């Protein structure tokens, strides 16, 4: 559910509820950490957590960006870009770019449906650009 507020051009969307990916960002590594407070009675319940949402620059990332340049090619006739020579022959380069976010969403759905998942008592999250 998304309400787009159209205001003469750019729109700001106001989703009524957070998507799962946003929920993950919000509640898995934000908020008060209870084990800093409670020493004795914390129950070590098993948590199905997800260690996925990482943005790391890699060769794969770079190749995806380059593919995005290929895709730019096919739309050149429409918008044009000075200084770039359009070469239409292989314009339809594979549209297989998939963002980390979507991939993480898929992964989550997968394990949600079979009840299994990566079982890590603690989520270690590497961050990077």
């Amino acid at each position, binding site marked *: 559910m998304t309400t787009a507020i159209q*205001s003469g051009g750019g729109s700001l969307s106001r*989703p009524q509820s*957070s998507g799962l990916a946003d929920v993950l*960002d*919000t509640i898995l590594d934000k*908020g*008060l950490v209870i084990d800093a407070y409670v020493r*004795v009675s914390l129950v070590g319940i098993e948590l199905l957590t997800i260690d996925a949402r990482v943005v790391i620059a890699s*060769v794969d990332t770079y190749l995806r960006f380059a593919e*995005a340049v290929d895709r730019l090619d096919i739309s050149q006739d429409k918008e044009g870009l000075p200084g770039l020579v359009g070469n239409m022959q292989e314009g339809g380069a594979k549209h297989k770019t998939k963002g980390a976010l979507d991939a993480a969403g898929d992964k989550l759905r997968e394990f949600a449906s079979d009840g299994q998942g990566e079982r890590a008592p603690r989520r270690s999250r590497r961050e990077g650009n």
Partner: protein
Amino acid sequence: MPAHSQTRDSSTEQQTAVYVYGILPADTDIEPGTAGVGDEPGEVRLIRHRDLAAMVSDVRIDKPLGRPEDLTGHEELLDSAARDLPVLPLRFGAVVTDDEAVTSELLQPHYDEFAGALDELDGRTEYVVKGRYDERTLIREVLAENKDAAALSEQVMGRDQDATRDARIQLGEILGNAISAKREEDTRSLGDALAGHVVASAVRPPTHELDAVYTAFLVETSEEPELERALERLARDWEGRVELTLMGPLAAYDFVATIEPGT
């Protein structure tokens, strides 16, 4: 409220423990029948201590937590409370043995901190602004600004991917660095655009290669319309370039750990 006396050493027995969502003022009520997280979810209830309360529900400890509905449930309960009251959200997955432990180990010893933090949050909620670059517009922008990238793009465009692999990697790296720089710049612009309407801000790390901005803001409830107008202006400025989303009001997840007097 029945106290759940636990005998944790008899592992064959089915056991429940107490899942804690967050801390809030005691003068509130949970709608009866509100379901909590977990398999066979318990009813959400409050455990009160003086003028504080912990929002809790019973969970079975022999079932793992963390299904999508557990995650969204946790957040929805806190967010809906945060629309009316100050709430200190706990990170997902806080489970203690029983009601008694919630009082004696959480509410009682940390009464002053919790009460102080709730005062700080009174009348304030969190909003999260997320912006995603339009890939095409962004890459055009970088190619127009960066001669090296433009030259490399001419070398690789439409050519065999394997034959141009090195140039592609080089091009991608330039694009990646340029996008990071734009992200920093646009994150600053977002902060500047909202500066007059927020109490505090916390930049979140990007979770997608094309994330433009991702920042949490602590906002006085009365400023919400102004915040929205400022964002609409920014959305117009960035039309076709960045798609902006405003999430909230939310519980103050990004600010509870760092709240200090005067922030």
